[in-house]
């Protein structure tokens, strides 16, 4: 009887301490989770800003203007293109012209 009573008191104490511990742990982990979420959000924000920057800086027309202005580049026109006949195509053509 006495042993059972002591055991119950001990269990009660242990469970009380466990409740407090779990509650504390819960808070700590939720705060940790929040920090991680915040970290994720901040990384996302940075990633979005970088994407906007990339989109704004890699605009095709800007690159084209830059290539024209600082490297004197120009789109290939009909005079600057050399057409090569592929072996297969020439063979087929010879075949046809026979």
């Amino acid at each position, binding site marked *: 009887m006495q042993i059972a009573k002591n055991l119950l008191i001990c269990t009660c104490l242990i469970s009380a301490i466990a409740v407090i511990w779990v509650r504390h742990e819960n808070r700590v982990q*939720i705060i940790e989770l929040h920090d991680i979420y915040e970290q994720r959000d901040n990384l996302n924000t940075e990633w979005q800003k970088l994407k906007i920057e990339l989109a704004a800086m890699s605009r095709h027309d800007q690159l084209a203007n830059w290539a024209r202005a600082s490297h004197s580049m120009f789109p290939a026109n009909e005079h600057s293109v050399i057409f090569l006949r592929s072996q297969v195509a020439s063979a087929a053509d010879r075949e046809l012209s026979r």
Partner: protein
Amino acid sequence: MNERRHLIFNRDLVLLAFIVLGFGLLAARAAYLQVFSSADLQAAGSERHVRNEAINPNRGVITDRSGETLALSTAVDSAWADPGILVRHPERLDELAGVLNLSKSSIQTNLERYANQDRQFMYLQRHLTSQRSEQVTDLDIPGVSLMREYRRFYPHGPITAGLLGFTNIDDQGFEGIELIRDAQLTGKPGLKRVIKDRRGRTVESLHMTRVEDGLDLRLSIDARIQQLVYKELLAVLTNERAALATSVVVHIPTGEILAIATAPSFNPNLISDRKVPRNQAVSDVFEPGSIAKPFLVAKALMQGIVTPNTVIDTSPGYMRIGGYTVEDIRNFGPLSVEDILMKSSNIGVTKIGLELDPNELMSFYQEVGFGKRTDSGLPGEIGGIVPVRERWYTSERATLSYGYGFAVTALQIVQAYAAIANEGVLVPIVIFPDESRAEPRRVMPQQVAVEITRMLERVVTPTGTSRRAQIPLYRVAGKTATVQKLIDGEYSSDQHLSMFVGFAPASKPELAAVVIVDDPKGKSHYGGVVAAPVFRKIISSALRILNVPPDDLEKVAVKGVSAKEKVRS
């Protein structure tokens, strides 16, 4: 024993006294708190209580066909206050107003009004710069906190504005694709139940529903071609002093819209610059004029009324029908059907048109997509009018023949020309390439489509009306039109639409485009002079960007063969 009992009794008494005293103190304290300082405590309690906080979802990204960003939301901080708390710290309003660049009095009046209404939320300033949001955090004013919101950015600014539209300050779709695809782009907000302290900091989180971010949306647009189209449209506005310029570029084999733009546009990143976006290609109808002539010829060919070589006398260059006179720009004399298209003779097509049943012609036009909304999925698209009637006057039949008396959109025109280019199979045009689309359908026999393509190629030769649309190394087919604008039910004598529609390379068509210049006030208003060069600039660059192999190698040397033995086309 008695002595001892007495002692124990005394000890019990002392203990009892302590206990009574202890409880008495507690009761007194409770009474004090309850009665005398309840107001203060209630306030303290309300400052530390459970709140539901929404977590805003991140709006989906809109990209072009290759994943280039066209619209993107990025997180920004907005400053807000709990009026009930902030109102009790008036001494800090000066600092707050300074950081937010607002007047102290305006914050104060709003604050008092909100506090009196017992509200718990008040925006101080939305979408802060990152510098300002740091300053607000540093101030650490009770009741003032930041929340995460999203702001939309459009890296291409005015280039895509007419198509995409924009979002409002809450990042909800307000116009354009942003509006019609709002549900998909928005996502679902999450919810967070938290306990906050009086400074608005989260002390404990009770519950959290996950936020579902919006879905990304891919368009068929090619950002490179879209940029170049917009640039050329802006140039023609300046050069020709036109009111508006519109163009649509379509990839013929798939029907995907590679570019669609109207100039002038606006910068959607500046709220002050925002206007209702105008996408003339889908929202404006007009009479197609000469652009419809190839379809009339196609119908006549299909019915066997004419062949490409049938000769029709167009002299003396004018013709009276009912009370109207149909005129050509000069007397062309006898012309073959092919030459009628090349010279765009009104009399020629009228004579062919009068041989056709007008309702059959109209239903053929409907078949090629005129007068009804396409399956593009573009916002704000309207249908146009292609009427079917029991009775037609001869004069009405004549006007139908040269492209008046019915109304179409630019989108319908480019789709119909793409069908000719595609050997008579109409591939419905689309803007959302990843979604289900309508089935392609044959609208004219292959033979007729090939014949019309050949004729349209002749239009873009030095003797045709559109020599300015010629592109070196590529064979181009197309047609110009210059129509008088209908203003308040009357044809304007000085306001025109100058148009060109065509496709290239003619031997294996890849790109179709329409260019419409509204009310050009330059030296000439003819489509062949105003719109054709724009088409040439757009398509020649687009062919190069897309690496489409040239098909017109007649005049260039090919290495590996002698000059005499050039590539047969």
